[in-house]
């Protein structure tokens, strides 16, 4: 049997709880809907007083609510105590409608609605008939401005009593409710949300704390949209489709633009601070269907997940992911064990093994490649000539600015330089702006001095480490003697040495040549900038082969450049050959690799590297061709 809506008279299905047209709560107890229809029953059933009042506003109810309220009993505030969903049969003897004076109620609405004005200050707050707070009304009617309602039936004291969170009155005895601890202007059940500003109606107490409040909605059935009527009503089928959403809720969808809504909300004193927004317009929007591709689980994913959630019962010493014994899949274990070496070998493992095998084989076996015909190194000849042509009566300044990482190339170059200096009986002084430099200077000079009969402090000096990079070189140029007053090996005052003593070395200009043994571009640049630009002493550089492109810009620059660059093992080989021609070949110490052996190994390594690069290019090329 269909039910007639008590408000609009629309015929609804028997199982409907709300009117399909106006959203009015439909009676289900056999009573006449018209007799028992009250504008508050639907909201009362949900025990949401503000909703009840919202409903009243939407349907523009007229008539006083005092008549049916005579049989109603007061109810506690819905936010404070859980209350069962009241049915129309459980009419409360007193339902109080409360209007907040600052509520955003336009006067027209207030005149139309005429809620019940039975006010009982002694009634506990939270009466179901109380109007919604202003922030709710602001959502419904964002254009409305908060205007005081001169016709409001309640006194401020009554309002303070009924809605203490919105209208606290000092001195008034308020019922001990959790609302006291909430931010003013908000119902207790919204106290947990962040409120950026205090509401204008009252001052917030800093001591108020938010207590967890039972919303009392456990027994409330969720809102079920009314079913679409099978038979079209007299008004037409067009009225049914939009009537799926009650009018009182449809009004919420009027503001679809969130920016407008936020702007309108900001005009309300109680709303713009509340991050909890009104029901989203998306409620009436169609659900967005997103077709997310679902990837099928990988093989072993279920077992792995099972293993992860299971407590580990087997204490294994295997590295990586431990597979508990609860996993009965033996294939998983075997698969994991089998895949490891293959993953490791391809492709890094093969590359590493190939390089290592080639290098070791060449170094250990020493295949008879013969004498290496090194490519032309024009820098070697210029380097040799620069040292040879420097004034023989002036000492040479050798800058040891390389570290252990480059010792493979730089030690060979440094030994060759020392060989020429000592063979030509040139005095030299070593300094370093790298902390490791003095160690290498002392080591190389110690190994070579005995062969050429060099005496420390008479023929050469190792002055040690000069901290400060550019500042150190600047200080060296300004005052050489005071920059490094003590030597590195014996920590003695260098002014007493025969090399420097007697005013032989007054400054940087007293040197005939500066040889820079550097492994970093910054150190070479500092030397050129701080020393080369401020002296007339020529500079030559011996650098690793990888540094040569960075040193070339300084080559042959007038007044401040480098006269010659010697780089890498290739340059060292050419340089040594030149020295062999000049001073005769030197015997290779036993147990050490000759330069030729090193270059042979380097050649093989470079070949291997070139093959690997070619393999990479071919691989990419084949992939592209196969794709096409």
């Amino acid at each position, binding site marked *: 049997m269909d039910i007639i809506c008590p408000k609009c008279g629309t015929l609804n299905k028997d199982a409907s709880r709300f009117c399909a047209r106006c959203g009015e709560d439909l009676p289900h107890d056999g009573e006449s809907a018209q007799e028992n229809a009250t504008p508050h029953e639907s909201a009362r059933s949900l025990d949401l007083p503000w909703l009840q009042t919202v409903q009243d506003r939407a349907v523009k109810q007229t008539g006083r609510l005092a008549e049916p309220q005579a049989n109603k009993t007061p109810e506690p505030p819905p936010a404070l105590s859980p209350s069962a969903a009241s049915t129309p049969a459980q009419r409360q003897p007193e339902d109080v409608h409360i209007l907040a004076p600052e509520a955003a109620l336009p006067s027209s609405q207030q005149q139309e609605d005429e809620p019940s004005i039975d006010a009982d200050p002694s009634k506990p707050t939270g009466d179901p008939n109380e109007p919604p707070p202003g922030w709710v009304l602001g959502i419904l009617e964002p254009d409305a401005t908060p205007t005081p309602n001169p016709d409001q039936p309640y006194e401020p004291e009554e309002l303070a009593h009924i809605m203490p969170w919105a209208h606290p009155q000092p001195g008034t005895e308020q019922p001990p409710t959790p609302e006291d601890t909430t931010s003013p202007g908000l119902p207790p059940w919204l106290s947990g949300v962040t409120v950026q500003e205090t509401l204008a109606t009252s001052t917030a107490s800093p001591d108020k704390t938010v207590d967890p409040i039972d919303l009392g909605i456990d027994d409330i059935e969720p809102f079920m949209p009314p079913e679409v009527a099978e038979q079209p009503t007299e008004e037409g089928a067009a009225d049914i489709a939009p009537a799926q959403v009650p009018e009182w809720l449809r009004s919420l969808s009027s503001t679809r633009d969130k920016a407008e809504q936020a702007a309108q909300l900001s005009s309300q004193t109680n709303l713009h601070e509340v991050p909890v927004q009104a029901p989203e317009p998306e409620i009436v929007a169609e659900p967005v269907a997103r077709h997310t591709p679902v990837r099928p689980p990988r093989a072993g994913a279920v077992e792995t997940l099972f293993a992860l959630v299971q407590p580990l019962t087997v204490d294994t010493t295997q590295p990586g992911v431990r597979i508990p014994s609860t996993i009965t899949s033996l294939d998983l274990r075997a698969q994991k064990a089998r895949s490891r070496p293959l993953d490791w070998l391809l492709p890094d493992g093969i590359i590493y093994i190939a*390089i290592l095998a080639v290098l070791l084989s060449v170094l250990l076996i020493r295949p008879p490649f013969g004498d*290496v015909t090194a490519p032309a190194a024009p820098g070697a000849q210029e380097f040799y000539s620069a040292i040879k042509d420097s004034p023989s009566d002036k000492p040479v300044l050798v800058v040891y600015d390389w570290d252990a990482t480059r010792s493979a190339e730089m030690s060979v170059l440094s030994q060759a330089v020392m060989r020429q200096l000592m063979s030509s009986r040139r005095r030299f002084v070593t300094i370093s702006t790298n902390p490791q430099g003095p160690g290498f200077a002392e080591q190389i000079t110690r190994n070579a001095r005995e062969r050429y009969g060099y005496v420390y402090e008479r023929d050469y000096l190792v002055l*040690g480490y000069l901290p400060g990079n550019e500042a150190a070189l600047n200080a060296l140029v300004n005052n050489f003697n005071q920059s490094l007053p003590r030597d590195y090996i014996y920590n003695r005052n260098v002014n007493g040495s025969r090399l420097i003593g007697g005013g032989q070395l007054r400054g940087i200009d007293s040197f005939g040549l500066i040889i820079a043994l550097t492994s970093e571009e910054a150190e070479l640049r500092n030397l050129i900038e701080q020393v080369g630009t401020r002296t007339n002493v020529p500079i030559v550089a011996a650098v690793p082969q990888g540094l040569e492109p960075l040193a070339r810009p300084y080559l042959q620059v007038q007044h401040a450049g480098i006269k010659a660059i010697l780089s890498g093992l290739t340059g060292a080989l050419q340089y040594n050959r030149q020295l062999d021609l000049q001073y005769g070949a030197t015997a290779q110490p036993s147990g050490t690799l000759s330069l030729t052996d090193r270059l042979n190994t380097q050649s093989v390594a470079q*070949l291997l590297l070139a093959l690997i690069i070619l393999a990479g290019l071919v*691989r*990419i090329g084949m992939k592209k061709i196969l794709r096409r």
Partner: protein
Amino acid sequence: MSSRITSRIILALNLILAYVAGVISILGFFTRGTFADLGGVLAQWVAVLVGFALLVGLGNLLKVHITRVVRGQKDWFYSLVLVSSAVAVLALGLAGSGGPGDPAVAWVFQWIYQPLGAALFSLLAFFLTSALFRLPKMHVTEAVVLLVVALIVIIGQAPFSATPPANIVADVKDWLLNYPVLAGVRAIILGVAFGAIGVSLRILLGFDRPYME
């Protein structure tokens, strides 16, 4: 109020000091005489400060790693190795009569530190090779250009490139290094220099105050 005035005074003093020191250094670089001498003095002070900074760094390093050892934190064993080796070399240098040139210290440097440093750097060859092999996977066009140039340079610099027909590759390598590479490096050096000038001006004029941090 007084704290604000004090902080402003301190800021002003720091700015003035930085400005004066910078101007003296610049003038001392380009001139001779008083400013050059003053610049040299400032540079010597910098050398002293850097030396002390090394000591402070060493102290902090020992403190961090000793704390890790004492508390038994993760990888405490490696911290113990570091601390013990640093203390051992320091003790050798202090105990010996020759200081850092002491034979014991020199032996440690030559037979322990130098081979370790060279070995660590040599690992670069392996990692670089595998990276070159994988490079075309990521950026095909740039990788191809890089690999082709690398191939030419590697073959051109190899000792066997002097023999034909590899000498053609050596000539191409020389052209690459003398023209496009040289131009690029010069441009980078110039850009770095301009950037350093800009940063220095900002510090001199007080826009950047690294000394206040």
